[in-house]
């Protein structure tokens, strides 16, 4: 007769690492699901409002979630301003909207999606994402001379386009991309992922402040004032010398021109009207390129391009209209200069609406 097997008390049983691993994994899943649920219920929403898609530019993410809030509130968007930091701190959509409503009686929904540091190559990808997500009727692409230099911002653009989330939004699906797009927990974790970098606390504080400073329509005011903006560029200043060395002489890089063409073609294929906007710059800015003659060459280029592609070009407002204390540097407008330029844009858009040139719903205009 076989002896019965005596039960081994649990406390004396040999440790089975496998069971601990399984239990640990269960705890991990519970923790992840629990945190996801808590964040979706609004945990830390006020004190920690930031979310990130793992991009190098947290400002892009700020704009993205502000746009989402805008879409939820307004039921959609009609016109999105895109471009670099010039747009971010240079256009107040509320002023444009109010003026257009006042002059035309039409309530047009404007949003500012200017993102600092993104070159025209990265903006092309952004525009595709905006069209697919927000379904605007008009995209305004603000452009300026630096957009066409191949050295300018290319590394950031490459890393941005290669990121899993951007690839996901451009239609190249992946598990990481899907997770980043849908998981609030992951978006919060991405904000904190570089917690061990030396400047992280200061950067986090700054970004939270930037979130609160960025308005509901995406405009982020700039409070800086450049006192001596009217002075010519100083080649003894290392920063200005570096800019001069980089930009001296206007030239268009093929890949940048291609990016611009791609934007035109994309908008046409998606039935979205593209408007080019030449941003204002102080006259002294063109000293970096070699003077007003180079600026004139740029204007010839952009006007020809717009004409060949049958795209409306809104010319830059004359810089003299901006008060002397309205510049934060030679090309960026500050809180004082923005209302002047935004009113100018309001006038321009009102004119486009009245002349039936803006492809809004019910206007009958074919983009």
């Amino acid at each position, binding site marked *: 007769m076989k002896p019965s097997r005596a039960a081994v008390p649990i406390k004396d049983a*040999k*440790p*089975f*690492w*496998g*069971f*601990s*691993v399984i*239990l*640990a*994994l269960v*705890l*991990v899943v519970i*923790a*992840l699901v629990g945190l996801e649920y808590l964040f979706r219920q609004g945990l830390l929403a006020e004190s920690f409002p930031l979310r990130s898609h*793992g991009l*190098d530019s947290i400002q892009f993410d700020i704009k993205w979630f502000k746009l989402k809030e805008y879409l939820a509130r307004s039921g959609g968007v009609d016109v999105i301003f895109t471009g670099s930091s010039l747009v971010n701190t240079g256009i107040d959509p509320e002023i444009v909207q109010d003026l257009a409503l006042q002059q035309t009686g039409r309530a047009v929904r404007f949003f500012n999606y200017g993102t600092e540091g993104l070159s025209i190559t990265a903006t092309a990808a952004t525009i595709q994402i905006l069209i697919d997500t927000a379904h605007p009727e008009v995209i305004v692409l603000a452009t300026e001379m630096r957009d066409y230099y191949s050295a300018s911002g290319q590394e950031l653009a490459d890393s941005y386009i290669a990121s899993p989330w951007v690839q996901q939004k451009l239609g190249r699906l992946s598990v990481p991309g899907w997770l980043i797009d849908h998981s609030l927990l992951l978006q919060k*974790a*991405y904000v*904190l*992922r*570089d*917690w*061990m*970098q*030396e400047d992280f606390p200061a950067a986090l504080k700054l970004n939270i402040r930037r979130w609160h400073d960025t308005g509901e329509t995406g405009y982020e005011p700039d409070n800086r004032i450049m006192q001596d903006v009217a002075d010519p560029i100083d080649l003894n200043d290392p920063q200005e010398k570096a800019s001069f060395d980089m930009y001296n002489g206007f030239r268009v890089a093929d890949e940048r021109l291609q990016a611009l063409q791609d934007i035109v073609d994309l908008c046409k294929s998606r039935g979205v009207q593209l408007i080019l906007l030449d941003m204002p710059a102080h006259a002294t800015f063109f000293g970096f390129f070699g003077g007003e003659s180079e600026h004139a060459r740029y204007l010839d280029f952009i006007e020809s391009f717009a004409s060949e592609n049958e795209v409306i070009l809104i010319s830059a407002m004359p810089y003299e209209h901006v008060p002397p204390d309205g510049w934060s540097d030679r090309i960026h407008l500050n809180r004082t200069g923005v209302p002047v330029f935004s009113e100018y844009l309001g006038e321009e858009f009102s004119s486009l609406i009245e002349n039936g040139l803006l492809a809004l719903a019910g206007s009958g205009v074919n983009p």
Partner: protein
Amino acid sequence: MTITSLVFLGFICASVLLYRLLPVKLRTAWLLFVSVVFCATWSLPFAISLAVLGSVNFLLGKSVRGADDAKKHPAWLWMGLLFNLAFLVFAKYLDFFVPDLLYRLGTLSASWNTGSLTLLVPIGVSFLFVQCVIYLLDIYYQRIPAQARFVPFLVYLFYFPKLLSGPIERPKAFFSQLKDPQPISRDLLSRGMALIAAGLLRKMLIADPLTALLQPDSFANPAQVPLVVLLFDLIAYAFALYNDFAGYSSIVRGVSLLFGIELNKNFNLPYLSRSFNEFWSRWHISLSDALRDYVYFPLSRWLAVRIPKRDHVLNLILPPMITMLVSGLWHGFGWHLLLWGGLHGLYQVCERILRLRKNFRPIHERRNIIRGLSMLVVFLLVLIAWIPFRMHLSVAGQFVKALIPTSVRLQPYLDELYTLRQGDLTQNWLLLLPDIRLLALLAAAIIPDLVHFYSRNELSFLRWPVWLKSLLLGMLILALLFMSLATYRPPFIYQGF
């Protein structure tokens, strides 16, 4: 393919599974295959140069002793030693000497691209050098027969868990395990996975954040960094280096256990050492043991034959000093590394001299307070030696000078204290103190060692209650998932050697 990546995890799972499914006689070949694949993920030319190194050493091994193993051939041994030394010098100097040569050629309008040359240099070449030399010496001194088969020999050299940064394995023990690896068992799996978990904790949750938080100026422009911050950065560097290398060693030991091969333990609470003798039996143990057996003991015996008096000054000084200088050179051809080795040699010489005293008592017989003080003194002296290890001589000199609490260096603190006494606090006081994150990490860094110290077992947590193990493992997994999102991932420090 770095060993903390998900790709490596997949690679391990597939390799181990197939290894265990294959018949025993094919397993060695499989290990060679996966090791070659691992090499090739770093660079294919790297794998090719390893093959050349392996082939030459295999043939030299057969030549060092006669076919019947009776006759020694010193000429072949010397040829082997010189070949491996030349390979090491070539590899070490490629990054150092060639750019200088190119610059000079460039002035003569010649041009040469070294990019492809650098790819030929194996990562971990210093470790390979030692293993090749040990192999040849062991054959010469009849500790092992020359390996008859090429495949096991190549696995000895290129076994992927230990390829990049050791541990340095002795051929006898390794070949024996290769021939007869441990069968898969619950204990083996438990220990293997526990070592991997412990290694990931040290590397990703302690070493990487500590390294990221070090101020770049501390090791480039130390005079610009406040005194207390500089001191804590040095301590943080010491713990970052230790946890980085100990973490790596733990991971590779764990991985190797899954194949049934037990690699040497490389670290055993080195910062709790009470003497330098003890420190070098606890820090980078595989290298220390190799240096002891192949440099220190032979040199001591050679000297003892010529100078029988044990406490003769040459017997006291030369063996430890030369051994540590060799250790410095092994790490790299630089004066700062020689200084590091020389400092440790000096420490050991001083210890030997102290032991000659009539009333000398070994440290383990002393009171706790003396033992504690000894631990502190050893740690501080090791810390000082890390200064030239980390930076070139000119910067090391500035670093030491910046650590001295002169009135100039203390003034900012005194100013803040004065302001505080007035009932006010400036914005600057935070800049004068180390980052709170660094302090928290340092506090966390000592926990694994304290647990090991009090339990006397690096894997004592395997015996903890299941709920506790699961909770800690769950927290570890969550932390690792979070850390995997970071943009900055410092490489393994010892991979550079």
